[in-house]
């Protein structure tokens, strides 16, 4: 099968890859660009472990084709921290023990960051419904919710 040449922007840098039209954006990020921070937990858009933003919109990268990334601006977990400085969400996840195995963590961080951009002061209920598409099997969500609420408060103070 002939491959398509895709030019896109990933975490601020230009990126190019060749992919078959049926390959997902997640596969392209992981296998072609070697950005393995986004995870495949289900491949059906139910678990959110592959969450990335495309032109600032939160998407499951397992539900988008690699060829659809042409000309778009993609952000993944690898682009979240500013050099050695973690984003408040990342620091709060460590501080609050909001991860156990850590495999859902990249997706939850990307999804939470996208929420706080739209709504810097979410209620607990708003946050729980926003994150309802990001499965975590280890934590029961308690510490995740606390970490995001705490990060949101800190971000409001410093902005």
């Amino acid at each position, binding site marked *: 099968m002939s491959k398509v040449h895709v030019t896109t922007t990933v975490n601020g840098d230009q990126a190019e890859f060749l992919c078959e039209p049926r390959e997902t954006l997640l596969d392209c990020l992981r296998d072609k660009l070697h950005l393995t921070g986004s*995870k495949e937990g289900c491949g059906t858009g139910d678990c959110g472990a592959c969450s990335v933003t495309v032109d600032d919109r939160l998407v499951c990268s397992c539900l988008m084709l690699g060829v659809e990334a042409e000309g778009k601006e993609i952000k993944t977990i690898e682009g979240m*921290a500013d050099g050695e400085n973690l984003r408040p969400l990342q620091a709060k996840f460590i501080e609050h023990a909001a991860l156990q195995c850590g*495999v859902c963590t990249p997706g939850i961080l990307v999804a939470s960051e996208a929420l706080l951009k739209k709504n810097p002061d979410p209620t607990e209920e708003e946050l*729980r419904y926003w994150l*309802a598409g990001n499965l*975590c*099997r*280890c*934590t029961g969500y308690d510490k995740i919710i606390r970490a995001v609420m705490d990060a949101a408060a800190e971000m409001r103070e410093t902005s």
Partner: protein
Amino acid sequence: MALDNKNNEFKVIGSTPNRPDGLDKVTGRARFGADISVPGMLHGAVVRSPHAHAKIVKIDASKALAMKGVKAVITRADFPEGLEGEDWNLQENAMAGEKALYDGHAVAAVAATSPLAARDAAKLIEVEYEVLLHVTDVDEAMKDGAPAIREGAADYSVPEGLHPNVVRFFDTGMGDLDKGFAEADLVVERSYTTEAAHQGYIEPHACLGQMGADGRGELWCCTQGHWFIRRMSTAVLGVETTNIRVTPSEIGGGFGGKTTITIEPLSLALSRKAGGAPVKMVMNRGEVLRATGPTSSASMDIKMGMTKDGKITAAHGTFRMQGGAFPGAPVDVTTMLAFANYTIENVHHIGYDVITNRPKQAAYRAPGAPMAAFAVESTVDEMCRTLGLDPIETRLKNASRDGTRSTFGPKFGPVGLVESLEAARDHANYKMPLGPNQGRGVASGYWMNWGGETSASVAMSEDGTVTVSVGTPDIGGSRASMALMAAEAFGIAYENVRVNISDTGALGVNEPTHGSRATYASGLATIKAAEECITKMCKRAADKWGIDADAVIWEDGSAKPSGPNAGEFDPLSIGEICAEMGETGGPISGHYEGSPTGFSGSFGTHVVDVEIDPETGHTTVLRYLVVQDAGKAIHPAYVEGQFQGGAAQGIGWALNEEYIYGEDGRLQNPVFLDYRIPVASDLPMIDTVIVEVPNPGHPYGVRGVGETGITPPLPALANAIADATGLRMRGLPMTPPKILAALKAQKNG
């Protein structure tokens, strides 16, 4: 190794520092099973049976092999013959032989140059089946006329006259049941069912295997226990155990499901056949749900007797459990622990391990305990309601405690059930007023915990910092716990300890991170190995000072003379001793190996408030409290995390999760949309209280905490629903349609 009572004023343990692997895990750098790639790597895919039970007539791989990029195809013919017992079971489960035994059973596998090529090639492998009658329900599988899945699978324990699908039989108990029931004012007999639930780890199984024609190679995989994977994979492939070195990746959840093999031996066999090229295999979610082990489903009968004032006089339980197409349903544990919360003189358990056309069950958090807890704790709750007794006071009256005889035989040592019940009773949640359609449920649970084969090393670095090497993969923050315990033992800062999870080439055999054993057993091993280092460092100081090693003590990270008689010397710090170790005798390290037996079980009590929507039958969990005995919480935040995670899994099992099989014996819900685990909006905050009744068998008093937490939620939810509605739900999951139907039936009288 006994509890060190002198050491009850801890300096480091009990604090909550950031975990050492936190940075890697919030930046996407941490490498999980599917994140590992090597040059020259091929990709594997598996052909799976679409039938629940079928004879494999013919496998034709010629079209696949003709495809460009396809390097190898394997079937059962590529595995050695003549295996016995559990090794045969593992081999048969990894790759079907004469018959496919369940929907999703592997029948062939292929390796190709890309994941897409491998998947395309798998579709070209033609398998001819002769479909056989199937059975997926445990009660049906025991009936006359049910298809026999494998004749001769039963072991010594099964009495004559039972269906060949009954493969193990259990009969345990003590006392005089007739006498016990005669003493009761109330005798209740009820039946219950629970469906199979999957561990639901978010990371599917993944591995990268490489093996040459000489049978030697490497395996990288996500697992709870790489020595188990090594032993099982090599047994299935008929090569010597040491020939494969297994390195664990980070693991994206396991909960028991990653203590056994699935695709690992397939990747090695494909690699060998492809001339030794490494083969990467990654399951998709459908494969995980169809072909890796969920827990057992259960059908249970409980009979219990109680006096008017709440004393349990007798208990009898019959537990029928299916664990898929192979022996191994955890009925053995069920028939030990079903009534373990209580002191009961007259008690009896009967258990049946039954095979069906379902995937081979795997351990799932406190395997065998939650289903029994659902049946027993629901029955106790019903009796309390009938007799007008408080559920916590009644449990306190009968509670297992130090010195009481357990319902499985031995006497308990110090355990924390009474303390957990009292803390639950005194918690604000237990006093919160309830509104209309709301109810409160209480239940307790127990897990025995585990020691297991353990090997660990501690090595000193030149600057006095410390490397701890353990063989138990870190699933929930155990690197932090090990570092805390090592720092405590040495009297140094937490940051000065680095914890490695070693591969199978670096340590002796380690059992997996299972049985709630990692913090207990690897922790004990770390402390022991650290103490060996301390002894050696004291000797170096003694040599330098020219005094007896006995006259040197270790305090706050330094060697010091034990008193004025030993001599006047300035303390030698860990850094000073290690800086000179090359000249004073060479490297300093300590080691521990053993199967520690001082583990002790953890009791917990949960209190849940729910609201039932009378229009939809939907259950909203309003508030949730977990109280559990940790012995000593090394890193309290991760102890709470275990409590909360266990509760959430139990809530899912109680309310939503189930394996749904169609008439055709195929799994109807092999996606997360339909196999619905709790999401953030399903749950409230999960309140926790850590009870600490020190375990005398660990130097710092640690008990494992991982498993107990999944046990009480099943009955606690059922009891809360009964409190809210007057309905006693005896089958899990308690989904909205089931509750709605029960509400309607109740209304219509």
